[in-house]
């Protein structure tokens, strides 16, 4: 079930336990207590990184090469699998990756499709659905004081899109901590400018506050609150106390803020990932997973960067392709070297694919009926392709897969029961892996 990669993992995996410093950077986990809360101990995968490709990448130009694409297929380091010539570096890591070419979903507009990709449900004005990142966070629990679910950065299309990735009725504690975007509009073409540092306002004590000042504040708060709380004891107050305790721990523990501090990474590493919004977001995702986060969504593209209605080929060739190739291959190599590849599941997807035919603006339009998703890392059988599209890459020819099946696969990799249902307050049971026609998704057999 694990990825068979050449070269030894052994020594790298050990260093996490023993605490030796690696050549690439200081291991964060040596600072942190590993506190198992609700994680199933036999689970293979401990964390997931979702690379969010806002706008919907074209499948025939990337993972499912077809004659109508302007890009030629190239061989990979797995016999029989070819991908687009846009990704030469990734092609050499195909043994650590898997491709689904037969994903069929039901929404063809950005908003609805993003909601669908995050929850596997079609949007409904009467009810909100929890995202699969929130579900995984809830089912696996904290590993230590690091926020378990983080979104790097805000969704480029705005807060409405952030909503789709939240926990909704299962509880605000499973919402992602969203890192604000320091400079959403700057950058050439589709790619956002480099991010020098991520600001995490949720965890940043104002510089003017010293620790003893905090103590005074705490005791004064206790004094002010006590008359009222003596009068009116409420269960909500004690749960707020618990949260306040956790909050203090998160803020006062330097290792938590360090996890978000990219300046701790050597220049070499930052260069390797790529000096772009996407590159640095993915690097931060690696740091967070290493520190103990469970689910990190890495964005960093400009709004709908992959939504190539115009000049599809030019945009892919000039900016989107090369930066993706660089960043993702760097991530895989980095995780591998740190011994994190087996315990980290990677997903790279957007909200849909694109049309098999070029339109009048030299572009491709939205297409949800058959598209591709890239997976990698731990918990799944790598070095293979699941399903097939037809000769043009427009319709599923074999092995159709739903978003619910993808979720079920990820849940299974974590050791989560994918047939679970949560009860919505309105009284309707919600599947955590929702497939088409009200069926439950099933883990994809080729992968897990």
């Amino acid at each position: 079930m694990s990825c068979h990669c050449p070269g030894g993992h052994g020594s790298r995996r050990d260093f996490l336990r023993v605490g030796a410093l690696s050549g690439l950077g200081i291991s964060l986990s040596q600072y942190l207590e590993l506190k198992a809360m609700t994680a199933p101990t036999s689970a293979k995968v401990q964390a997931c990184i979702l690379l969010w490709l806002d706008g919907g990448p074209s499948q025939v130009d990337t993972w499912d090469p077809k004659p109508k694409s302007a890009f030629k297929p190239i061989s990979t380091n797995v016999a029989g699998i070819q991908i687009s010539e846009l990704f030469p570096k990734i092609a050499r890591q195909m043994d650590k990756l898997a491709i689904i070419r037969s994903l069929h979903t039901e929404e063809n507009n950005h908003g609805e499709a993003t909601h669908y990709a995050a929850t596997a449900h079609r949007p409904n004005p009467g009810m909100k659905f929890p995202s699969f990142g929130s579900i995984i966070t809830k089912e696996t629990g904290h590993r230590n004081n690091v926020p378990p679910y983080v979104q790097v950065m805000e969704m480029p299309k705005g807060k409405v899109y952030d909503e789709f990735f939240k926990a909704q009725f299962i509880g605000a504690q499973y919402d992602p901590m969203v890192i604000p975007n320091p400079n959403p509009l700057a950058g050439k073409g589709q790619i956002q400018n480099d991010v020098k540092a991520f600001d995490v306002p949720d965890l940043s004590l104002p510089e003017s506050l010293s620790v003893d000042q905090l103590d005074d504040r705490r005791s004064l708060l206790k004094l002010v609150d006590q008359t009222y709380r003596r009068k009116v004891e409420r269960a909500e107050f004690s749960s707020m106390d618990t949260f306040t305790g956790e909050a203090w721990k998160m803020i006062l523990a330097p290792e938590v803020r360090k996890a978000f501090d990219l300046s701790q990474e050597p220049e070499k590493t930052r260069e390797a990932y790529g000096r772009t919004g996407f590159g640095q977001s993915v690097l931060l995702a690696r740091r967070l997973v290493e520190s103990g986060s469970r689910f990190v969504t890495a964005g960093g593209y400009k709004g709908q960067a992959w939504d190539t209605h115009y000049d599809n080929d030019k945009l892919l060739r000039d900016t989107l392709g090369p930066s993706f190739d660089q960043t993702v291959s760097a991530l895989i190599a980095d995780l591998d070297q740190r011994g994190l590849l087996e315990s980290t599941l990677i997903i790279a997807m957007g909200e849909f694919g694109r049309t098999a035919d070029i339109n009048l603006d030299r572009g491709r339009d939205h297409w949800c009926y058959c598209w591709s998703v890239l997976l990698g890392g731990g918990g799944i059988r790598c070095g293979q392709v699941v399903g097939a599209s037809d000769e043009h890459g427009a319709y599923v020819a074999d092995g159709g897969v739903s978003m619910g099946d993808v979720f079920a696969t990820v849940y299974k990799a974590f050791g989560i029961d994918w047939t679970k249902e949560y009860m919505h307050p309105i009284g309707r049971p919600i599947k955590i892996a929702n497939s088409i026609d009200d069926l439950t998704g099933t883990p994809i057999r080729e992968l897990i």
Partner: protein
Amino acid sequence: MQHSSRNRELLKKAWPALVIVLGFASLGSAAQPPKSADFQTDIEEILTKRGCNDSHCHGGVKGRGGFKLSHNALVPHEDYYWIVKGGSYQVLSAEPKAPVNPRIDLKQPEKSLLLLKPTSLVAHAGGERFKVGSDDYVTILNWIRDGAPYGDEGAAKIERLEVSPSYVFLPPNGKQQLRIKGHFSDGREEDLTHRVLYESNNPDVAKVTPDGSVSAAGAGEAAVLIRNPGHIAYAQIGVFTPRLANYPHVPSRNFIDNYVFEKLRNLNIVPSQLSTDSEFLRRVCLDVTGTLPPPDRVREFLASRDPHKREKLVEILLNSPEYVDYWTFRFADLFRVGMGSQSAATVGMPWEWVRKSVATNKPYDQMARERIAAHGYNGPSRYFEHSGETAAFEKKMAEQFRVFWGRRLECAQCHNHPYEAWTQEQFWGLAAFFAKVTSTNWNVAQVIFDDPDGTEDNYGEGAKTSVSFVKATNPRTKKEVEPRFLDGRVLPQQARADLRMELAKWMTAHDNFAEASVNRMWGYFFARGIVNPVDDFRSGNPPTHPDLLAALGRDFREHGYDLKHLIRTIVNSRTYQLSSVPNKTNQHDEIDYSRALPRPLDAEVLLDSISILTGVPEVFEITSQKEMAPPGTRAIGLILPARYPSRFMDVYGRPFRDSVVERDLKPSLPQALDILVGSTYTKKLSREGGRLDRLLKSGRSDREIIEELFLAALSRMPSEEEVAGVEKLASRRSKQQAMEMLLWALISSREFAYNH
């Protein structure tokens, strides 16, 4: 069986009949089974009484084991089909899945699945529902032998169930037998006590036997639901703790108090004392205007000896500009002003409409009709403004029912409602009223109108007709549905010129509208609605005080749906003005209004309160677009609140109006983090020109400053302990630092963040 002398005479004449009668009697229990049963009354009664069509079993959305019955025998024709013709049920299609095997066997009736399964002669996941040879068994067997008749459609049907007693108050070991009477459409009455299904919704409080005998289990409240084909009724059960020897006299100020206190008396719960002036002042200011009273007003109110000062305060608040601000915000939430489909250019219009309606105290039924039937290019019609991501017309319809009738019909969109009496056909019949909504672009502006013919004619120069919904089609049967009211009446053709106005008139004249509206308003002043959640009226969720709800609805209607009158009635009641401090008898009460329950402030109100307290207004801006709300705009005054980034408001549950607004106000980790490091909690404290800055510069003493801050934040004077604590801190650190910390502690406290 007893034989009277009269019977003996008959016996001599009719001994063959006697043999038959005795034959039946030998099969077992007290009541005689009818000789010829029909499906729609007798068989459906058994299927309901034995729980077969319960929503957990065959009456659930998908049925069970391929066998589907309508919940509570709502649709006997369909039930008949599934039993007599057979087939496996599919949710999303009207076609049965093959194979299609009848569940009755006309040639060998004893071998019918309908008899084998419920008696467990064949494996049945639902277990044994009745025994072989019981009355139910014999009824069904004879019915099959008779050829399984459906029954006479024209026969008199039960119109309603009468439950007596419908209010039951029991001591801890008490028992009460319920009697159920069925009233038929031909005027007849029948005792149905042994023919209905009883369920307690709270067995920890009260249990009920299959024959309707209620027994108390523990203290509290329960409802016993009573079900008969097509009908649901309930009895309210209250189990009280040992009777109080001297229950105090509790004065009433208006009819609300009468109902509330009577029920508390029956439950042996003593209401709390009246709130202190501090408590009342802060609470009523927040509930009526969303604004904290300034320190001077607090001092004035606390010092006043006027016995009518509370009523006078209420009048001042009702006529204040802050009242208009706050209730514009509340209704903007409810009517989803600024939701996704409204264009930035026009979103000011619905907001203005709401504001004007609130400012002129427009009757609420008029507001409702203006919104439901909105036409043209105006404020309320912006709700129907189309864009690429428009909500389908049936969803628009369902939303009106949720907003104005407090009923959630949405489940009935795809299948008959799982536990209520709404069918999918009824849902689409209502949706048909919205099926003709069309819009035309005239010089960019979208004009909304109904296009009854659905012909999409060009409406003139520059007009571009966009989305037009023409047919309301039941997605399961694929047939078109005509506009039809819930009571079954189809809207006649000649009245279809203004479909939505017809629906609006019917909806707002109905009792449901008055009751749902007062219930929703009630929910803004108490921790819950009389029906809770406030927009979830259904038979399985009965009101805690049905008579109070009905009385409030009547009063609202009789006063022309005047919102200010309703608010005044509520806040002037003693019930509203009770303290939040519990006593021994009421500390566990969460639903009977024996005291005020603390409620967390909404995000916008909390942010405004912090801004007012610190004297530093919030700046709402979108830096990337260089767009800013006018300085001094309050959070409740934002027209498009979700537009402006605000970590604080997100963390406190600011809703997006793209779907029905529901706020989650539970405490959370992000809130805790924000209190510790959020800019709202740190940057406003010492800002130049803010309240603290001005107080410090004014040269006031420590004590004076402390008092001022407490009055502004909590509408009360500080205790000596609190003053001493701050003064001690001020001597250790600087005066400024200590006061800053006090201000931080005040805004971070539970007392500040809650309405109590």
